[in-house]
């Protein structure tokens, strides 16, 4: 593997547009059956324009990007804040960059800033991962 240094960018991941089908599949598979993500009538009654994506779906996309980069067994910590609701038809792009390389627990570890954003650049999730390298 090439050397991991501060500023190293990990391979980004672009997702297909969020569809109702995406949300239905994720609701079933994840066990998050909150109707606000799959039932337009419910979402509208709750004052939302329509159903919207689970925050954890985008966090799972960030997770895919991380485990594409390093095996999951090296993942030490992974966190995310949900900044903006991901709407139907949004195209999400995941990216990550090494911000620190340090030693901890007898391991070399990298701190990675991870971001999910819409095509227009609006950040939807911002988080951090610690990965053993």
């Amino acid at each position, binding site marked *: 593997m090439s050397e991991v240094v501060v500023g190293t960018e990990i391979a980004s991941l672009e997702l297909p547009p969020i569809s109702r089908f995406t949300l239905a*599949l*994720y609701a079933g598979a994840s066990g998050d059956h909150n*109707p606000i993500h799959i039932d337009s009538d419910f979402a509208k009654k709750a004052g939302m324009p329509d159903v919207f994506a689970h925050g954890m779906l985008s966090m799972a996309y960030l997770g895919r990007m991380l*485990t594409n980069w390093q095996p999951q*067994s090296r993942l030490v910590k992974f966190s995310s804040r949900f900044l903006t609701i991901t709407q139907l038809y949004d195209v999400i792009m995941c990216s990550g960059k090494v911000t620190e390389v340090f030693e901890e627990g007898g391991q070399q570890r990298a701190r990675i800033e991870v971001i999910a954003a819409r095509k227009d650049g609006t950040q939807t999730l911002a988080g951090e991962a610690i990965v053993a390298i």
Partner: protein
Amino acid sequence: MLDRSRIGHEFESFSAEVEKGRLRFFAKSIGETDPVYWDEAAARSAGYRNIPAPPTFPFSLDMDGPELLPVIDFLKMDVSRILHGAQEFEYPGMIYAGDTITVKSKLKDIFDKKSGALEFVVMENSYTNQNNEVVAKSTCTLVYRNA
């Protein structure tokens, strides 16, 4: 306002089986392209003892108990006003297909911002496998819209 006297409550733990088919379905639903997440042989040749649960899967275990998220009823929250604010995971180990995971949850904190217009409910969870190893920990912050 949500009842602050409930802070510190520990919910009854429950156990959930991590089924192989569920992990395959989860992998499909997030568009996973790495076969270790659905093919047992690929997982074993990558050094795993079975198909691994992806990094965010512990959140799905939170909802495998008798209720979607017990804290919703416990604090008498209206599900349509809840948003997910933040999520953190720590991985002292890994979760695999075939594991039985015991999920323990605690109501860690409730606080508000914008003069109570938004309240934050912080849950702390731990995940212990059948060998009594704590394999993951998580902190989940829910946002409750009062206005």
